[in-house]
């Protein structure tokens, strides 16, 4: 019985590590990802990067994008995502307007499972 409880706990930890995310200074948490903009706070009309630290196991792949849902458009630039030692780095982002932007993180986990995480920020 104890073994079963421990196994369930381990499974829960592995399956939903989001709760373990610590809010990064100047950044935000999107599901299982702790995201730190560089520079912070997020600028308007200037390029920025994101340092993305998974709170659990490092995913196999990650794609990053951002849109302004109210304006029905995305960025004019395509970010490039590279794997770092403990996570990912996305370069080449630029918010060309002030307002609400929704980050979209498409995560491919090591077991092939895919997950879309979003986080909305307001930039001025």
């Amino acid at each position, binding site marked *: 019985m104890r073994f079963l409880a421990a196994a369930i706990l381990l499974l829960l930890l592995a399956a939903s590590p989001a709760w373990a995310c610590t809010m990064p200074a100047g950044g935000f948490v999107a599901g299982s990802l702790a995201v730190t903009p560089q520079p912070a706070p997020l600028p308007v009309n200037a390029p920025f990067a994101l340092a993305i630290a998974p709170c659990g196991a490092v995913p196999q792949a990650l794609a990053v994008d951002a849109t302004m849902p109210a*304006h029905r458009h995305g960025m*004019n*630039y395509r970010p490039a995502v590279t794997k770092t030692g403990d996570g990912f780095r996305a370069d080449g982002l630029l918010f060309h307007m*002030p307002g609400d932007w929704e980050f979209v993180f498409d995560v491919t986990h090591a077991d092939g499972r895919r997950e879309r995480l979003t986080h909305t920020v307001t930039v001025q």
Partner: protein
Amino acid sequence: MIRLLPLLVVLLAAPAAAVEFTPAERAQIERLGPWPPAFTPDPGNRLSGQPAAIAFGAALFTEPRLSAAGDMSCASCHRPEQGWGDGRALAKGRQGDLVRHTPGLWNARLLRWFGWDGASDSLWAAAIRPVLSAAEMGGSAAQTAAVIRGDDALSRCFAAAAGQEADALADEEVLVLAAKALAAFQETIVSARAPFDEFRDALLQGRASEYPEDARRGLTLFLGRGNCVMCHAGPAFTNGEFHDTGLPFFTASGRPDPGRFEGIRQVRESPWNRLSRHSDDASGTSAFAVRHAERQHRNWGEFKTPSLRNLAHTAPYMHNGSLPTQAAVIGHYSDLDPDRLHSDGEAILRAQHFSPREAADLAAFLASLSAPADARGGGWLERAGKCGTGE
């Protein structure tokens, strides 16, 4: 009723209440300055900010021998006294009208993209384009190099600016360095402080200001319901990016102008872009825009947001020069045809239906973005100094 009549007359005649700005509006106003911004050299141009290069660039700016027929210089279309444009709806090329309006050069150094379609990602690459364009100056690298090498004054100026003799370089290198000198000169074309700048600074410092009430109301519209600040943002009043503003897709000849869609292709393929060996930025940081620019279907018919600074000195307006006055521009956005906009494009613009008073208020605000001192135009080439003499 008779007794109330004088009161009614007084009420109707009374001026509207003074405009007070909310904290959010004050924050928006703060972001529209300060002016002028500090100079930051272009890392891709080693001649940027160099006095010898500025003087050489000013000399080249008025040099007609860079054109195929020896009759056209940069200054033929970018006239200081015309707000660095030509005052025409469509630019004039070697064989008649071109398809777009000549863009002005005020504050060009603050931009990320150059040309209405952003086909260049630096001021120096943008300086090369018209020199080589068959429809514009029709010159070549060989011709530019020959003119510089064959003219004692210009070759001395080149050496002073570039630190190398033109004779020791390939034609293409001479062309690129000449363009970088032209860019160094154009970086000096910064508009003077406008009435809005005085108002902004006074507001933030809690000082009284003479800024007129109609301009204040216009500013409120600009920041609020008009949504103008969404694209005309920052101290230069432009986000430097591209939008479809509901103008016709077609040129005067009936052919479509693809705008930014084609501009992205051109800048990516340009041998002069910031990813090329001609950039002096070894870090590659300044190549961010061309490295990451993404071509999307909605880019079709998009054109660059122009700066609003010195608007009063740069008529006519829009990428095709189709609107002769600021009033016509305000009217365009007031009566915008939503059916003309891309169905899969941005959902930012909608007809504003400005009342006559609102249109007048907006015009008053826009007028406050122009520096009266710049209306005279001249003096820029002279202030750049005469190259080769140290003056």
